[in-house]
């Protein structure tokens, strides 16, 4: 069976997606700033659980695809980390 990281959980009923970040790989400050950047299109809630940060995003517009929103956010955080010069 193929492993799966299970980092993005979509709840279509509530129209929200929960994205889980491992702080061993993702910088908390970059996550926080990315949430701010997404403020125009999504409302967000951030929680931490041990070395994980959970971000729940709820789109504010109907044209946002909930199934890809979490992955788009993941890529955004990765790009943000690069531009912040935090790791690479």
């Amino acid at each position, binding site marked *: 069976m*193929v*492993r*799966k*990281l299970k980092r993005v959980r979509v709840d279509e009923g509530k129209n929200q997606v929960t994205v889980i970040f*491992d702080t*061993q790989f993702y910088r908390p400050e970059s996550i926080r700033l990315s949430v701010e950047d997404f403020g125009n299109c999504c409302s967000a809630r951030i929680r931490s659980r041990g070395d994980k940060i959970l971000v729940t995003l709820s789109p504010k517009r109907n044209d946002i695809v909930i199934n890809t929103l979490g992955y788009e956010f*993941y890529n955004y955080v*990765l790009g943000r980390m*690069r531009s912040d010069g935090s*790791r690479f």
Partner: protein
Amino acid sequence: MTKKSAKSPVDNTETDREGNYLIVSVNPKIYSLDIVYYAAYVLMDRAYITLGGDPGKEILVELRPQSNTDLETLGREFNNELLNYAVYMKQSAKNQRLREAILQRVLLTNLAPPEGKTDGSVNDTKGGTKTRGKKHGKKIKKGQGG
């Protein structure tokens, strides 16, 4: 159990065609986390990338293509980018001393005094003074002052 994946010919990847994603396993002793980040950044425009695993033992990179990219091709490209940046970083480390030496040389050269302002006169043991090199385009003979 539904068979979702095929074992990829590339040994460090697992492909789930039904879920349309693949997992690349990276040994951090071979490719550091920085190299993984660089490789991920290159593919960001074509795939959704998620990092996980254990940075000390096994880094897992989940790749989900954004368009109709073949999963195996994506995995191979990611491996290529890992190698690409590993070589780049190794070369960069090798060249670092050379770069520093060149920079030092350049900076020291800039600090050298302008021409004509140094006094090149030396005392001649025979009594006269001798000026090194040419003065006003003429060679100075022994015994002539400068």
